[in-house]
């Protein structure tokens, strides 16, 4: 457990949106599970932390939710991405990539000098 990495909230929100965009409507457990799987089990997601985050995204209008029956006829709350959620995902993804590129360039600075 200890070698698994914690993730920041903003990043987690981005991941949730991306997951919903890629996988379609999902319940909270499904989302958490998916994120873990995609990260190759390197990220430790406390499933509990995802609920306040989903609520926040819902308040912001990026996701919407419905109670529906799941695979084995169990009632569950399903979240899906909204149009504004997609837009937000686009913006945040590009911001993330830009930041990434800049940070990467900085980190490569030392190597060139060496």
């Amino acid at each position, binding site marked *: 457990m200890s070698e698994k990495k914690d993730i920041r909230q903003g990043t987690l929100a981005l991941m949730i949106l991306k997951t919903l965009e890629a996988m379609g409507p999902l319940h909270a*457990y499904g989302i958490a*599970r998916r994120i873990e799987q995609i990260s190759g089990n390197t990220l430790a997601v*406390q*499933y509990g932390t995802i609920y*306040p985050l989903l*609520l926040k995204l819902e*308040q912001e209008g990026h996701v919407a939710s419905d109670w529906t029956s799941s695979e*084995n006829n169990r*009632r569950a*709350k399903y979240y899906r991405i909204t149009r504004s959620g997609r837009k937000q995902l686009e913006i945040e993804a590009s911001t993330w990539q830009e930041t990434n590129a800049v940070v990467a360039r900085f980190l490569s600075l030392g190597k060139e000098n060496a």
Partner: protein
Amino acid sequence: MRHLRVFVRRLTGLFGRNRRDRELAEEIASNLELHIADNLRSGMSAGEARRQAMIKLGGVEATKEAYRDQRGLPVFDALLQDIRYGLRGLRRSPGFAFTAVVTLALGIGATTAIFSAVYALLIHPLPYYDPDRLVWVTEERSGAGGAVAEPDMVAWRERGRPFESVAAYALDEYTLAGAGDSMRLEGALVSANFLSLLGVMPQIGRDLAPADDRPGSAAVALLSDALWRERFNADPRVVGMTLNLDSAAYTVIGVLPPRFRFPEMGRAPQVLLALRAPGSSIFNVQAPGVMLQVVARVRPQDSLSRVQEELQSFQEARRRLYPARLARTAEGRMVVVPLQRHLAGDSRKPLIVLLTAVGLVLLIACANVANLQLVRAAARRHEAAVRGALGGTRMRLARQSLTESMLLSGIAAAAGLAVGTFAIDVIRGWRSPALPWLASAGLDPYVFAFTMGITIVAAVLFGAAPAITGSRANLMDAMKTSTLSGMRHQGPLRNTLVAGEIALALVLLIASGLLVRSFLDLMRVDPGYDPKNVLTASIQLPTEEFAGPAGVSREYTPALAFASQALPQLKALPSVRYAALAQRLPVQQNHSSLTLVWLGPAMPPREAWLKLRTPLVGVTPDFFRAMSTPIVQGRTFNDDDDARSPGVAIVNRAFARQFFSGGALGKQFHSMAAELCASCAPGKPTDLLVVGVVADIHQQGVDRPAEPEIYVPFAQSPRGNFHVVLTSNGNPGALSASLRSTIFALDHHAPVYDIATLEQRLSESLAQRRLTMFLLSAFATLALLLAAVGVYGVISYTVVQRTQEIGIRVAMGATQPSVLRLVVGQQARLILLGSAAGLALAFALSGVMSSLLYGVKARDFTTFAVSWVLLIMVALLAGAAPALRATRADPCVALRNE
């Protein structure tokens, strides 16, 4: 846009919390089931599947808390929670809540009421243009009341210094005749610039013009709004109509605005007439001088003291140029006071004392609440520590504590508003012509906000201090020690607060004690008459019957005829024992005049006149019997003392002392007093024989000394304006209707006015003293009560705090008395310290009180001693219950307490 939406959603998230909580629980549960199902599928045992799922989920409660914070507005949510919690806490300790609320409410309420009254009288700007620059000017002479001679006023006006402008007025009374009953009016002669100097415009018609002010110009009048409505049905065509005042015709030129306030305390003249004085700065020795009251406007850059100095030196130089006959011996001192202060009159000093008193009460209330908060905070230290241990942040705990203080203050403020409204009603209910400003006192919202602010700051300050130290409390310490033995370090602060309360309460107690003693002394003063069952009124005979240049003899006939007709008829009224006429009666406006009295053969020089001027009162024979004024020596007047008999006089004891060093009976003095007697002629000095000496009547009120007076038979010195005195067997008030109708039947042009019983008048003359005494005593009682609450709180807290220690002592063999000594010892130290400070403070402040006292010294030993003993007794009593509780401490219980 997005933020707004989020905010609205979160705001709605504040409500329906139960439903939303349920929904979250359901969501988590359903997801948990899914997770468990997955785990089962991957081959775990049922128990392991659930365990792993739970681990993965993390703390459910923390999740729910985070979820709730996200759902609503955490700050707001916490506030609601704090308020709920605070209310629950207050409900749980009703004693604390009740005491704090009552203390604060009384403090806020009483302070607001008095501040409002003070504001109305002393601070609220006068309804004039730029009122701060208005001053009232007078010349203070020993003996005579302040007034300014007309030529002096004109001289200041002509010079343009030290005032920007100067106006004058003189109050008078007039009989208004015409349609309807004749009516006695209050009126004032005013200079033409009087209204414009004040910045007041008539609501209809025009202001006085300089042309109206010259002697001999057409007589014009301005009506007050009240008279206009009452007598003329608010008819605007009144302008241009003719008014019959004292048999002279005046043309109405305008009506004053409804809210016009005449710049004289308690006076509301119904007509303003042009002064029509000579308007010259040179004294005319032949013409009688006109004495005036002066209002002036100072220039913005001039200070009051500078104006006064300049005026004084100008007057001193000017007096040297007075005609020799007018050169005054007693040089008057010029006094310039702000108009506002002049209008506050005698009420200013008592109000300032009351204001100080109520400020002290507020201070005590604040100290009390602070103390209660401190005790409470100490008691809750344990709770704070536990909450800290469970994850409550220091901010959160402090906020909780603050919310509770605010809640308390809020409730107290509402109650305080009620108390204040009630107190204002009580004060206003005093409704007295002697204190006209009372009517204008109202609960001032700014004042209320101000006092509330002070108390809330106090409550919060003292609520917050323990909250902060409380939240900083070392968790381990607080948990380790018992609930109450911690926080000992707050002892000194608490003790200081209570000692301070005791000191302030003692100061108030002493002040009210002094006033009560003064009042009791006043009640014991023999006024020189018995006000019981006496009805008095004023009558003005129509002046037209006196008219005519050679009217000297004609002037007296109507008055004499009236007296001889009216008195038998009045006396014949049912239940009337005595009926008399008098030119002067105690505690009311007098119709008497001053006369010069001397003993030697020659008239004394002018320099000595001031001391020799003596009030002269014409009375009918039954006057002294009607007033129950004792005849000390000699006889009273009888019907034979008339125009054909020798001039006689009755003098009071003060006169006998001053002029004859006691033995006045049978002596003679010279005066111009009598006009009709065997040997006298109007305007010529006569010898009067003293036929009697009567007790001193305190004419200006029982709190003023009686002055020398001469009584002469009404028949030898008749006047058209006098009082009627009726003494009845029963309720004198019932006589007023028959008095009116009797006089009306005799002469329907003679207005009867100002009817009241002598008892009412006497009581009114003491209204201000009584009100001050009543309020100050109320405040002192309040202060004493609050201090007692403070002592009780601290002692009972200490007792609870030391329960364990006392238990151990008892277990070790301490007797009840020794335990009592222990507790009372602490209490006694507190009380002695506090009361010593109080005595010192009262001693230092005694100068403030001296002008309000009668008969007692401001540092009266008895009052100080009695107040001190009373305070100590009450304070000891307040601590007695908890002290006794301590002696009954059961060691087992006490030790188990830990």
